[in-house]
């Protein structure tokens, strides 16, 4: 029972990340009709916004202490971050909360990157076949990865969660269950955060005029265009929005997974499966499938299950995708006419 509850939590957490990335993918596909393989790179870039912010905060004043020597004979370097020398306790607070605070920087940065990407490259591929789009965005992803690797190296760069949520929560005790049910605070925060972002995106699309126009454009961009609305510009903003969502997912994921240049690719393939299972172009489908597959993957790696089907944890997602596509060729919530013309 404990094990099932814990795996369920793991699934929600993983599902949150899948859903956020898949949501952005679907937004782009639904509006612009572009299959964006560089979306994982946006997730990674978001994570590196947090890394960069943290590095800036940790810029150190280096004082050479001539009285102490390193093993190779040079003077020992005493390093103190500038923010701590300048701001004292507040500086310390900034460093401690660098991950959540970097959200504030990530939003404008990712919006700009997203818009630049769409205006600078993607827009030239609207009329091209999907294969071309996949190739160009995949190439772009590799370029972005290599740039990040050049500046940040290949090793993961750990980011710590604020001290207040660094430990784990004794969930078992909350519900009067076993003491063995503990779960890291930050993962709970991450789940809450992803739920919030998903809700925010849906509210934006559902309850604002801007969102209504975008939804109308997703249905029939030609008619919306005929009504005198510059739908392309709105779609550009939606691309920026998708980049922001991916970026935020990346920022908040850094304390769970020390980011490296390759983390985007690791998530991308799974997110595509999520999109396909959810139904191409369906936003609720992407979210539903994200959580569903996250939870299934967690359950599949339970020892009780792997002892019967060894290795099932590594293929379950693809297995489920096959079954769903065989029985529901449009995915869980896919609608008619998408990618069928």
């Amino acid at each position, binding site marked *: 029972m404990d094990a099932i509850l814990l795996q369920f939590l793991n699934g929600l957490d993983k599902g949150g990340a899948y859903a956020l990335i898949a949501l952005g993918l679907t937004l782009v596909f639904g509006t612009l009709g572009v299959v964006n393989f560089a979306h994982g790179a946006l997730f990674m870039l978001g994570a590196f916004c947090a890394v960069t912010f943290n590095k800036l905060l940790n810029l150190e004043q280096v004082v050479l202490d001539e009285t102490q020597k390193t093993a190779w004979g040079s003077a020992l370097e005493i390093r103190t971050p500038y923010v701590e020398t300048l701001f004292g306790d507040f500086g310390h607070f900034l460093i401690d909360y660098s991950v959540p605070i970097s959200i504030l920087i990530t939003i404008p940065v990712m919006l700009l990157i997203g818009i630049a990407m769409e205006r600078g490259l993607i827009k030239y591929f609207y009329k091209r076949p999907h294969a071309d789009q996949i190739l160009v965005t995949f190439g772009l992803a590799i370029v972005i990865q290599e740039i990040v690797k050049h500046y940040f190296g290949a090793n993961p760069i750990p980011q710590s969660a604020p001290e207040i949520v660094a430990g784990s929560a004794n969930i078992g005790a909350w519900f009067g269950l076993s003491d063995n049910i*503990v779960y890291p605070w930050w993962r709970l925060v991450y789940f809450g955060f992803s739920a919030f972002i998903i809700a925010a995106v849906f509210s934006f699309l559902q309850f604002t005029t801007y969102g209504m126009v975008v939804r109308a454009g997703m249905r029939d961009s030609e008619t919306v265009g005929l009504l005198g609305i510059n739908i392309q510009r709105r779609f550009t903003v939606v691309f920026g929005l998708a980049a922001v969502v991916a970026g935020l997912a990346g920022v908040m994921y850094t304390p769970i997974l020390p980011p490296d240049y390759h983390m985007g690719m690791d998530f991308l393939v799974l997110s595509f499966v999520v999109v396909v299972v959810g139904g191409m172009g369906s936003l609720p489908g992407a979210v539903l499938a994200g959580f569903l597959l996250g939870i299934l993957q967690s359950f599949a790696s339970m020892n009780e299950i792997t002892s019967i089907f060894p290795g099932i944890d590594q293929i379950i997602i693809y297995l489920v995708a096959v079954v769903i596509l065989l029985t529901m060729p449009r995915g869980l919530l896919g609608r008619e006419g998408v990618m069928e013309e």
Partner: protein
Amino acid sequence: MSKLFMTRRGLLKAGAASGVALAAPMSFVRGAYAEEFCNLPTGSSVTLGFNVPQSGPYADEGADELRAYQLAVKHLNGEGDGGMLSTFSSKALKGNGILGKKVEYVTGDTQTKSDAARASAKRMIEKDGAIMITGGSSSGVAVAVQGLCQETGIIFMAGLTHSNDTTGKDKKRFGFRHFFNAYQSGLALGPILAEQLGKERRAYHLTADYNWGWTQEESIKNTTEGLGWQTVNAVRTPLGAGDFSQYLTPVLNSGADVLVLNHYGKDMVNSLTQAVQFGMRAKQVNGKDFEVVVPLFSRLMAQGAGENIKGILGTTNWNWSLKDDASATFVKSFGQEYGAPPSQAAQTCYVQTLLYADAVERAGTFAPPEVIAALEGFEFDGLGNGKTLYRAADHQCMKDVLVVRGNANPTSQFDLLEVVKIVPREEVTYDPSIFGGDLGPADVKAC
């Protein structure tokens, strides 16, 4: 148009003739070269091939290996401060290159992929005329390149490779390993685990699902079970899983009080970070403090795990904080050159280059059979790991192994590991026959 017309018979004739024409000179060349071994240097210089990961997940480790190789070449050619040439027990090397020939090198990128590593080694052998190949930062690569070197008759001095197979079932006459292996990690770690964690423990293994992970899991399991520990479970995790939460939560309820992470590189950083987040360092099980053990530690990787490695036990081939003359000399010359201390990968690569050069000097020839004979059973000292034997039976170095712990109070950004014990060579020496395998012939001339 009709001039270009060709009959079937004409085509066959032409084809046969050109086939003969192409084959004839090649067969003469082959015959002429078969007398000689591969790539014997004829001019005033000799070329070594440094095959390291310059891209991919171990690129930082590869960069450090390359720094060490460049330093070794400098020292062999008599430039710089000479490094460990002055502490090395063999005095055959004079700082005038190898057998008077200036040392030059070419580099390749293994990408931490067996096929890419083989291809780049092949290029260095066939195109650049490398007389010896060295490097690599994973066992998959080492085994693949070693196999290629055996086929072509080129000596391979392995870099960082920890799997038992490299000098076990996949050992080769032309392959030599200075780095220690998973079996020795187990032998070294066992007594310390018993001493520090007690003899009644229940261990849970998470193991990277590939060659090296399996051999390490087996080695550590054998040792700990020999101590009286129980193994609760051993779970294989896919390489590069990223999020290990679904493998970590079952540990919480398993009744285990030790978690053994048979992971390396990125997997180690991720699984360790996440295990700490799940409160495993702060937990009590069976009335004991829950402990995490990482049998193979690397300082470069430890940087990625940040705070989380503090207090965690593991083993390592060498650490720059060692105080013996040879280590101090090496750290000094590496630190002055690059402004940072060498990693264990850098040390093993530097030492391997010196050992090869020294063997050639002592043999008096570059011919592989003599060089191999000079390395086999060679006893030396003064290269940073105490008295060392290059064992003839499996080409594995027998030397001290370090048991280390993540440093709780580091004095600098490099001071991440604290040496708990230098386990003497006798305690990590084992019977080479337990892993099987066959070295193969020494007189391969397959250029």
